[in-house]
């Protein structure tokens, strides 16, 4: 036997790690002062952060919440011996306007209810494992309820809009049985469109004549502030995801027409700046419309922003589809799942999961892009801030106003980003 041979006679018990490798001291050494370079960076960053705080905190803490104009603020600051503080008077005076635009104050409960209910409608979608699935019925009904709460008018409007879906589906079921599936789909879509564009108007008038149930209407030009941004953002986000999925699938379709329509649509919309689309919505569309048609400006903007977002969404989802191995399609086929079932049960859940970061980036981008509507004269927070700054009392105010807008946008976009991280973690099902 060689002298390298060795047999262990006693097994070792586990010990605690040495103190230098656990605890806060260890964490600091490891993360902040691991090398000389790290140490210098840490010190420089700390100095920069402290310097910034010394500047910003006194500015933030200025006692000007009661100020009624910029001059008045300056007087308060001089009296309090607090030079160079912020003038918060503009926020405390105008925050309701920043939130609701010129929406009638006695009707504020309607947008508030709409957004609270929006949270309820979103809950079963966002937190499907914690919220009872029955709430999804409410989610399905909500898109019809939401505009009614905001714009008001007769209850028959949203009901007629919802009826369009049932009519389309009914026609599809009947037609697909008689003349085949594809024709059935086309007939269903046509029936729904005819209903919405032509017939539903008469139906609503007739029903409203018989049973005038409704709430006070509010015109679009009174909409503004964050209420407007969120409305545009939510609709564009909610509609662009399904539209983007359809476009991404269309782009991969074997049917030539479907494929080229999707490609052209995506490339065209992506190739044009959103501003251009918004100008088309605000001015050009009127030229093409028959005179006298009253096509709501916010509705036009909603359509444009949605189309814009869905083109980007389609490309993001196409990336997810491309990342899926071909074997997934083959396994689904081999098990006898048809195209739509394979897409819904196998392909899309995976493709969407892969695309979450891109989808959420697009969402965030769309939400921030809603501020562009100020250029065509809608009073979103930026549009309002221009109006406020034009007021002689607040002429010259900058940081307070934009800071407030930025903060609220940040709260929304940051929540979206955190949610996407939560979702990615939840959907993680082990290494592949």
């Amino acid at each position, binding site marked *: 036997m060689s002298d390298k041979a060795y047999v262990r006679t006693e097994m070792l018990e586990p010990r605690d790690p040495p103190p230098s490798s656990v605890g806060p001291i260890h964490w600091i050494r490891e993360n902040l002062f691991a090398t000389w370079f790290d140490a210098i960076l840490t010190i420089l960053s700390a100095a920069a952060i402290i310097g910034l705080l010394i500047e910003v905190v006194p500015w933030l803490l200025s006692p000007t919440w009661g100020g009624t104009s910029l001059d008045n603020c300056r007087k308060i600051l001089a009296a309090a011996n607090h030079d160079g503080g912020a003038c918060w008077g503009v926020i405390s005076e105008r925050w309701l306007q920043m939130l609701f635009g010129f929406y009638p104050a006695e009707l504020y409960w309607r947008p508030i209810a709409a957004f609270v209910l929006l949270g309820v409608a979103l809950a079963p979608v966002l937190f499907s494992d914690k919220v009872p699935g029955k709430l999804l019925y409410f989610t399905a009904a909500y898109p019809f309820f939401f505009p009614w709460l905001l714009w008001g008018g007769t209850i028959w409007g949203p009901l007629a809009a919802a009826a369009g879906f049932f009519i389309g589906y009914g026609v599809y079921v009947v037609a697909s049985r008689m003349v085949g599936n594809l024709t059935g789909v086309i007939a269903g879509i046509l029936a729904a469109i005819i209903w919405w564009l032509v017939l539903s108007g008469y139906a609503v008038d007739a029903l409203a004549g018989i049973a005038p149930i409704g709430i006070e209407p509010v015109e679009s030009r009174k909409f503004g502030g964050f209420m407007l941004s969120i409305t545009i953002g939510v609709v564009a986000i909610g509609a662009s995801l399904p539209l983007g999925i359809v476009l991404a699938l269309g782009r991969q379709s074997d049917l030539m027409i479907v494929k080229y329509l999707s490609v052209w649509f995506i490339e065209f919309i992506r190739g044009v700046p959103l501003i251009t689309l918004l100008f088309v919505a605000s001015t050009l569309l009127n030229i093409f419309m028959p005179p006298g048609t009253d096509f709501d400006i916010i509705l036009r903007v909603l359509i444009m922003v949605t189309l814009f977002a869905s083109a980007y969404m389609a490309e993001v989802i196409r990336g997810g589809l491309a990342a899926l*191995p071909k*074997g*997934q399609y*083959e*396994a689904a*086929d*081999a*098990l*006898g*799942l*048809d195209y739509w*079932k394979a897409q819904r*049960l*196998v392909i899309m*859940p*995976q493709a969407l*999961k892969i695309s979450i970061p891109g989808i959420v980036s697009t969402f965030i981008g769309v939400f921030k892009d809603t501020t562009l509507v100020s250029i065509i004269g809608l009073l979103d927070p930026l549009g309002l801030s221009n109006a406020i700054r034009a007021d002689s009392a607040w002429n010259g105010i900058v940081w307070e106003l934009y800071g407030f807008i930025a903060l609220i946008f940040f709260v929304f976009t940051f929540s979206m980003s955190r949610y996407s991280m939560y979702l990615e973690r939840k*959907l993680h*099902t*082990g*290494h*592949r």
Partner: protein
Amino acid sequence: MSQLAVDREIDRSKMKVSDEVAIEIIGMNKWFGSFHVLRDINLTVNRGERIVIAGPSGSGKSTLIRCINALEEHQEGKIIVEGTELSSDLKNIDKIRSEVGMVFQHFNLFPHLTVLENCTLAPIWVRKTPRKEAEERAMHFLEKVKIPEQANKYPGQLSGGQQQRVAIARSLCMMPKIMLFDEPTSALDPEMIKEVLDTMIELAEEGMTMLCVTHEMGFARQVANRVIFMDAGQIVEQNEPEEFFNNPQSDRTKLFLSQILGH
């Protein structure tokens, strides 16, 4: 290359070949673009047959069995599976796919679903089996492939051999009459190969009609009733395993056998 697939006795008594035809392929040709990948394939498979398809890489083995469940489209000739002819009619394709199970080299499990959900997906959505019944059947087959305890894990948490056994269970849950295997053990380590072959042997013992593309010649000897040798898109030789291995006729077969068995 292992000579024997498993060390236990294999019960060949139940592996009866019936007179009824399961698959009939008549004068089938297929091209990929201008590349003639399958040339004049004629093959009849009876119920209960266990056929091993062997041949060098690129000879068209995968393409052949993928034509049988229409994962690939053939351009000439007829393929008739359980009495239904494969044509471009989608109804026929759906019908055939529900009769034919397929196991892939890379398992192709659905990573976003648990093992149990993988097994119940198609029965619920294609066969419209009630969920409870589908789950019971899935558990039955998972027990058969000896991994019922993994039912609620995700495929990413299983070993390769376990994943392949789940893939087999998933196919079986559709109650297929025919099973196609495309190199089911090629992506596995030796130990796991044995687990999977064991499962396949059990299937054979229950009388399943099987077409296996495999390089496991031990499996071919012990389980198959017919070995088909393909080269350059053609069936070059077919025979009972005993004859095929001990007394190959064609030079191509001899060369192939000497390469994989020789030394």
